[in-house]
C-alpha cells in the first residue's frame, strides 16, 4: 500500500490538483493568443469557487451551481474586457485590482450572508460525484490513473484538446491568433478585433470559474477565504511554461499539479520539506524563459556570424550606387 501511495495514488491526485490549474491556464492561453495578458486568473477562479458553492446552496443542485458560476465567470471576463477596451485601463493594474476586489468581496458577501466565519459549508451541499469511465477503468494501472474523477477533471482534458483544435484549425481561432500577433492586420481586413478579444476574455473567465468551482464543490465542499490560494498565479506560470499552447498547458498544468500532490504526500508521509518540490516547476519555468530568450539571442548571433563570415570572404554583392 505504501508503494501505491507514491505511484498510482500520487499520479491521480496530481491530476486532480492540476484540474483548476489546467483550466485557468487554458483561459490564460486563449487571452495571450488574443494579445491580452491576463493576470486576473486568480480572481476569476476565486469568484467561481465562491459563486459555485453559494449557488449550489440556494438552488439545491450542484450542476446548476456550477452553471451559474461559469456564467458569472464569463460576466467577470466581459467586465475585464470592457474596462480594458473601453477605458484603456492598464491590463496589469486592472488584473491586480480585480484579484484584490474578488478576494475581499467574496469574504465580505460570505460574512454578510452566513455570519462571521472564515470558511463556510452546509450539509445540504453535495460534492460533484466521481464516476468511472466504463472501458478505461477496467485497464489495470492506467484505469486507476485516468478514471474515477468528476466531470470537471475530464472536461479539463477535453477542453485542452478542443482548445487546440479551435485555436489552430478553426476560423475563430485563426482570428484570435491574428489579432494577438498583429491587431492592425486583422482590423484592416474587417475582423472585429474588439469582439475577438472580448470572446477570448469571456472564455477565459468561464474556464477560470469552472476551475474555481472544482475547488469548492468538486474537490471539497466548502469555501474558505482566499480559497484559490495562489493557484491562479500558478496557472499564469503554467501558461507561460506551456508557451500559450493548449496542449502545452495540459502538460505543464499537470506538472504543477503533480508537484503540489507530491508536496502534500511528502508532508503526510515524511518530515521532508514539501515546499522545495513546489519550487521545482517554478524554477523550471524561469529556466524555460531564459532558455527561450537565449535561443533567440543565439539565432541572432548566428545570423550575424554568418554575415560576418561572408563579409570576411568578400562574398557580399554590394549594389552599385545609382543603378
Amino acid at each position, binding site marked *: 500500500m505504501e508503494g501505491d501511495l507514491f505511484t498510482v495514488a500520487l499520479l491521480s491526485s496530481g491530476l486532480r490538483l492540476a484540474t483548476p490549474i489546467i483550466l485557468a491556464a487554458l483561459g490564460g492561453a486563449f487571452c495571450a493568443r488574443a494579445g491580452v*495578458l491576463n*493576470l486576473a486568473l486568480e480572481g476569476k477562479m476565486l469568484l467561481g469557487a465562491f459563486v459555485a458553492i453559494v449557488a449550489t446552496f440556494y438552488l439545491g443542485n450542484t450542476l446548476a451551481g456550477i452553471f451559474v458560476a461559469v456564467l458569472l465567470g464569463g460576466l467577470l471576463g466581459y467586465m475585464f474586457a470592457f*474596462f480594458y477596451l473601453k*477605458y*484603456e*485601463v*492598464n491590463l*496589469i*493594474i*486592472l488584473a*491586480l*485590482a*480585480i*484579484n*484584490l*476586489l474578488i*478576494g*475581499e*468581496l467574496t*469574504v*465580505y458577501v460570505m*460574512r*454578510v450572508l452566513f455570519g*462571521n466565519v472564515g470558511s463556510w459549508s452546509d450539509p445540504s451541499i453535495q460534492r460533484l460525484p466521481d464516476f468511472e469511465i466504463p472501458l478505461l477503468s477496467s485497464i489495470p494501472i492506467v484505469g486507476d490513473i485516468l478514471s474515477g474523477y468528476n466531470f470537471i477533471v475530464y472536461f479539463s482534458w477535453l477542453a485542452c484538446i478542443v482548445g487546440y483544435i479551435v485555436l489552430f484549425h478553426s476560423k475563430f481561432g485563426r482570428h484570435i491568433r491574428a489579432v494577438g500577433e498583429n491587431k492592425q492586420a486583422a482590423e484592416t481586413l474587417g475582423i472585429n478585433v474588439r469582439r475577438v478579444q472580448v470572446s477570448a476574455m469571456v472564455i477565459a473567465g468561464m474556464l477560470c470559474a469552472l476551475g474555481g468551482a472544482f475547488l469548492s464543490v468538486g474537490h471539497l465542499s466548502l469555501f474558505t477565504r482566499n480559497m484559490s490560494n*495562489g493557484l491562479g*498565479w*500558478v496557472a*499564469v*506560470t503554467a501558461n*507561460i511554461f506551456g508557451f500559450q499552447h493548449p496542449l502545452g498547458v495540459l502538460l505543464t498544468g499537470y506538472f504543477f499539479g503533480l508537484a503540489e500532490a507530491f508536496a502534500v504526500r511528502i508532508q503526510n508521509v515524511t518530515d521532508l*520539506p514539501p*515546499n*522545495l518540490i*513546489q*519550487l521545482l516547476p*517554478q*524554477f523550471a*519555468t*524561469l529556466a524555460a*524563459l*531564459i532558455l527561450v*530568450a*537565449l535561443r*533567440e*539571442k543565439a539565432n541572432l548571433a548566428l545570423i550575424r556570424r554568418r554575415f560576418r563570415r561572408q563579409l570576411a570572404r568578400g562574398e557580399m554583392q554590394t549594389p552599385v550606387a545609382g543603378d
Partner: protein
Amino acid sequence: MDNYHRQQRVNTFLVPLLAVISGLVVAAVLIIFTDNSPFAAFEELFKAGFGCSSLNRCAFFTTLERATPLMLTGLSAVVAFRSGMFSIGQEGQFALGALTAAWLGFALDLPPVVHAIVIMLAAMVIGGIYGWIPGVLKVKLNINEVITTIVMNEIAVLFLVYMVNFPLRADRGTTAYSPVIDETAKLMIFMPGSKWGMGFVIAVAAVLAVYFYLWRSAPGYEQRMAGQSSLFALFGGIRNDRAAIRGMFISGALAGLAGAIEVIGVHYRINQDFAPGLGFTGLSVAILGQVHPFGVFLVAILFAGVGLGAQLGLQINLGIPRELGGTVIALMILFVAAEKFYTDGISGLRERWAHFRGQKTAVELAMEEKK
C-alpha cells in the same frame, strides 16, 4: 495651449479624487445591504482609522504604522515604473527582505542601533539583488519583466514558507514561526499601544530621498528619461540598460527594506503567511498616487486608514465585515485606472460648457487657426 496644460494639471488631482469618491459610493451601496446607514458607517470608519480620542488610544498612530510598508513598497513601484520597468516583484522582494531580517534578527549579536541598521542594509541588498535579476534578464535577454517578477514572487514566497517551516522554525508547535528577534534588533517605538516608530520615520525619509533622487539627481534624470522615452534617452547619450537595471535594484532594495521594517519594527518574527499581498497593494498605492513619491505618501496613509477603520470601526462596532475596507481600496484602484472614463467625462463637460457659452469647438478653432 496653456489651457491644455492647465487641464492636465487639474486632471492629475481631480481623477484620483473622483476615483476615491466613486469607491465610497459603491461602498455605501454595499453597506446598505447590511442594514446600516452608510453615513454612520463612514463616520465610524473615519473615527477608527484616522481619529484620535486620546494620546494613548490613538488609532491614527496605528494607521501610520500600517502605512509604513505600503509607503515603501509603493516607492519601490514608483522607482521601477519611472525607469520604464513594469516590475510587479515587490511581493517577492518584500518576502526576502522580511526573511533576511527575521534571520539576522536572532542570528547576529550586535549592539542595539547597529544591529537594526545592519539588518536593514542586508535586507536592502537582498531585495535589491532580487530586483536586479529581472532587470538584467530584461536588458540582456529581453525577457518581459512582468513575467519574470511573477515567477520570482512565487519562488520567494515558497522559499519563505520553506524557511519558516524548516530551518528557521522556532519550535515544533502547531503553527510555524521563526524565533523572536533580539531586543537589540528592534526599532524604537514612539507611542505605546501602537508600533508607530522609527520605521515610519525611515519610510518618510525614503519618500523624500526617492523624490530627490528622481527629480533632482542626474542618475534619476537618466532613469526618468529612459522610462518615458527610451529612444530619446539613447539619442541623448543615456545608457538605458544601466538606468533600467539601477532602477530595478533600487526598487528591490526599497521593497526589501519594507519587509525588514515590518519584521524588526512590528512583528519581531515571521510566519508562513508573512507577505499577505502587501507587494500588490504597494503597486496599487503607486498607481493611485500618480506614480509620485508624495502621492504614495498620502495614498499609503489613506489605504492603511481605510483598512484599519474597516477592521476596528466597522467590524467590531457595527458588525460590517472588515473586508469592506479591501473592497473599497480595490474599487478605488479600478476607478483610478479607468482614468479615461473621468477625463473623457471632464472634457465632455468642458466642451458642453463652452458650447453653452457660445464658444467655438476645437475643430472650428483649429480650422480658423489654419486660415
